[in-house]
């Protein structure tokens, strides 16, 4: 470092805490004002936006589920006509998968990963801002089309030929396919940010074997996103090409193949389950360790299980297609691979149980949700083993048994841990505690309501009730169970209401939390609640997996970063040795305009292929604005 540069820049070495805070805040804070807020690239603000948006979509998707349950409560009900019902179940699935589950899990990563690895912002923060506006636009596209009675009616899986040019009339399937494009863009952007943040921005000393388990799970999730999303990018683009410009990818008469769609969709669709589940597994690992008052048992096996799950996830997509008429060898292979994924799942469960066994559990609300998770997720996993068997699956495929199975996996396996995680990290995000009393009520109602709603669906499936039916005939023996399920769903809804009330009340007037209310071990608890815009006054130095338990008084910290501009430490991939100081981008309005331009292009291309041509001009303009050189040094070794 040359002498004159040192002169011109303000370093953090010589400043006392108050001065340092003042300078850091000046460099990192998002100023007041709508345009300033739109332009922000603070990962915490963007992640919070994501989480709130995702929960809004959860509420909307939940309302659709209630509408379906009202329709199915009695046979041959005429509350919803088939056209509306088909739109509703498509909207429910698409909203929950693409607009709630994936974004909310990624949003938790956006909030927590930079804090947990001890850095000041996520990598590529402007891309991060862009990704949020994009997914918001995709969600609005879908929901506005629903309001206009033009929502997709083809199921969240959109099988051709039903979604193809011959049977999917109107713009409904195009809207679905383009909504997918929005969510792909956003998910891929976030995944790249997570990978780079985890590999290159860890606090000095946080070698790969000291990364918190949540960060490991998010890293594996990000890699799955990067490898699975291209399949659906290809699938949705070819679908829209088939529909708009007469390509013939899925037209058997012209040499295309309807099954090609299913392979592409499930090559993405099955890993999608693990995109949702792995972050939840990371949350469970974190909560279990904190509330057992001991380090997680089996750190290495857990990391290996995450990675194994991520790899195996790509080898079992065909188990969604066991009844399309496959060669015997294919069936056997995919049965075996689908069964095999139970092994890493088992390892995870056993390690969590062992941690609870060895520790001294404190039954706070987050741990209650984790216990609920273990009870329900094991059921979902076991029914997953059942449907992995080809002969078993030929009977229950596309019945309510499968509906029950994947709700046990997705709600039991991902939403329960997520709610636990919200209770757990809410104090960090807002500086206020949620209510233990309401939390217990919410847990109780959701747990009981969920099981009463979804367990009977297994039996409905065995009794022969197919999925995706808008009604059923009175002479079939399904009426009683369906009514029971619909009533139980009200219990589940009331549980979510209690949860939402708890969130709102706590946000306004919860008990102040303090930096580390749960006495947890990971770095996000080393800063104030909510964390300042710059996350850490000084970047900590880490030499253990549970730094806050090892050094409860004070963490060792680094010095030598400039404070008159945004700067953070880039470290090596394996050992996390500091390599460089790198400037972190300032706020910018351009990602917002780029997202608007992209949305206009994508929505226009539903109607005419020329939108891609003309729409790319404003996108190019906004990207030029975004990447306009600033004339400052990017990083200094």
């Amino acid at each position, binding site marked *: 470092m040359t002498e004159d540069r040192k002169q011109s820049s303000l370093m953090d070495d010589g400043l006392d805490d108050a001065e340092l805070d003042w300078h850091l805040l000046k460099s990192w804070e998002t100023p007041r004002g709508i345009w300033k807020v739109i332009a922000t690239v603070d990962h915490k603000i963007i992640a919070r936006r994501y989480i709130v948006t995702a929960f809004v979509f959860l509420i909307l998707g939940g309302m659709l589920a209630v509408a379906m349950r009202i329709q199915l409560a009695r046979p041959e009900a005429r509350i919803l006509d*088939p*056209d509306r019902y*088909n739109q509703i179940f498509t909207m429910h699935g698409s909203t929950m998968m693409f607009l709630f589950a994936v974004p909310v899990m990624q949003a938790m990563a956006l909030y927590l990963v930079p804090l947990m690895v001890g850095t000041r912002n996520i990598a590529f923060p402007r891309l991060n801002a862009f990704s949020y506006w994009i997914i918001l636009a995709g969600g609005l596209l879908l929901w506005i089309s629903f309001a206009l009675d033009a929502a997709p009616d083809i*199921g969240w899986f959109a*099988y051709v*030929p*039903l979604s193809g040019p*011959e*049977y999917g009339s109107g713009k409904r399937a195009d809207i679905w396919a383009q909504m997918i494009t929005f969510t792909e863009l956003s998910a891929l952007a976030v995944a790249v940010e997570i990978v780079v943040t985890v590999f290159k921005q860890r606090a000095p000393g946080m070698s790969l074997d000291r990364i918190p388990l949540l960060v490991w799970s998010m890293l594996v999730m990000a890699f799955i996103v990067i490898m699975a999303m291209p399949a659906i990018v290809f699938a949705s683009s070819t679908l829209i090409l088939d529909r708009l410009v007469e390509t013939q990818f899925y037209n*058997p*008469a012209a040499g295309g*193949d*309807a*099954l090609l769609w299913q392979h592409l969709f499930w090559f993405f669709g099955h890993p999608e389950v693990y995109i949702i589940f792995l972050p939840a597994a990371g949350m469970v690992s974190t909560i279990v360790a904190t509330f057992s008052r001991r380090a997680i*048992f089996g750190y290495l096996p857990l990391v290996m299980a995450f990675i194994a799950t991520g790899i195996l996830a790509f080898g079992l997509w065909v188990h969604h297609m066991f*009844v*399309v*008429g496959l060669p*015997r060898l294919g069936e*056997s292979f995919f*049965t*075996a691979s689908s*069964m095999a994924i*139970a*092994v890493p799942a*088992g*390892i995870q*469960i*056993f390690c969590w*149980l*062992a941690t*609870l*066994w*060895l520790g001294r*559990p404190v039954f706070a609300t987050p741990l209650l949700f984790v216990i609920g998770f273990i*009870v329900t997720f*094991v059921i979902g996993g076991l029914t997953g*083993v*059942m449907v992995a*068997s*080809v*002969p078993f699956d*030929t*009977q*229950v*495929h*596309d019945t309510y048994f499968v509906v029950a199975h994947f709700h046990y996996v997705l709600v039991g396996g991902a939403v329960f841990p997520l709610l636990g995680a919200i209770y757990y990290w809410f104090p960090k995000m807002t500086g206020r505690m949620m209510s233990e009393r309401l939390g217990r009520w919410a847990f109780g109602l959701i747990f009981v309501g969920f099981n009463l709603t979804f367990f009977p669906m297994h039996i409905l499936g*065995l*009794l*022969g009730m*197919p*999925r*995706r*039916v*808008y*009604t059923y*005939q009175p*002479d*079939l*023996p399904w009426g009683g169970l369906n009514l029971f399920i619909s009533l139980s769903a009200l219990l589940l809804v009331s549980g979510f209401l209690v949860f939402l009330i708890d969130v709102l009340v706590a946000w306004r007037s919860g008990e102040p939390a303090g930096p580390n209310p749960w006495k947890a071990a990971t770095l996000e608890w080393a800063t104030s609640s909510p964390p300042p815009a710059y996350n850490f006054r000084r970047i900590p130095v880490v030499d253990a997996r549970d730094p806050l338990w090892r050094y409860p008084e004070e963490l060792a910290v680094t010095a030598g970063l400039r404070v008159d501009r945004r700067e953070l430490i880039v470290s090596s991939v394996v050992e996390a040795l500091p390599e460089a100081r790198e400037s972190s981008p300032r706020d910018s309005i351009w990602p917002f305009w780029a997202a608007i331009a992209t949305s206009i292009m994508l929505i226009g291309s539903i109607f005419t292929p020329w939108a891609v041509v003309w729409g790319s001009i404003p996108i190019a303009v906004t990207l030029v604005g975004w990447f306009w050189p600033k004339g400052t040094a990017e990083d200094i070794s």
Partner: protein
Amino acid sequence: MKSTSALLLLALLVSGCTGAQSILNAEGHAAIELKELILWIICVCAVVWLLVMIALVSALVRQRDPDGGAISERKAAVAISGAVGATVLVITGLTITSFYTTRALSEASPAELTIDVTAQQWWWQFTYVDANPTRAFVTANELHIPVGKVARLRLKSSDVIHSFWVPSLAGKRDLIAGRENMLTLRAERPGIYRGQCAEFCGLQHSHMALFVIAEAQADYERWAERQRGVGAEPTEAEAVAGKAVFMAKQCAACHTIRGTKASGTTGPDLTHVGSRRTIAAGLLEITRGSLAAWIADPQTLKPGNNMPLVPLTGDELRQLAAYMESLR
């Protein structure tokens, strides 16, 4: 897993009472094998779940030992290894069981009957294939097979993907445009088995049922012989008038009644519609009244299906229903 087994028992009782579309009411060769496998796997999994729950509860409430951390850690490592080993054993066992069931089901036995199944939005067309083409015949939504004989179904779709599923007889198999799939049925006991399309296929996916009627060989032969014949000439005056209405109105453009000039192929073959149990793919039991209701307003009974509302006077409607009923 007491509640589960109790519920399963309940499910068995319910299905036993009605004999309707249920996996647990297995009456076909394949379905019986599958039911055994399904109940066996469910029991194994229930035991596994119970063991995990015991481990969970004891982990949460056990008496804490004030010291002995290191020893417990080693014990836990051993226990986890054991549990993982057990998991591997269980899933290997289930995989092998599943392979054997698949093999048992695919043992080729010569088919004594070949039926082409063509699924379309939202009904089933069955063509009974015969070496002598004059002995082949077409029917809809109702499949008759002789008990104990192997019927081979060639599954095709004329539009979107459907799935042929009669849970009491066999597992399901998709019907996909541009492909032909195969499924064999063998009913072990005579009976009427309901089935339903199991792949989402559009507006009326919910009302795309079919019935398989398994009957003694002699009964089957009698039924098939009658099906080969042309449509009965009506005798009752009302039905005679109904035939005239059928030919004069829009009906004949879409439906076939062999032996008359009605030869449309868009809708189901109605040559022997009066002999079937249900109308509109399992929607209503056939009576003169339900036929009239269906003809009068198909779009209210089954919204979105391809049968249009044909304006008829009350008399015409009655006559038409009488004619349909007479087509036995």
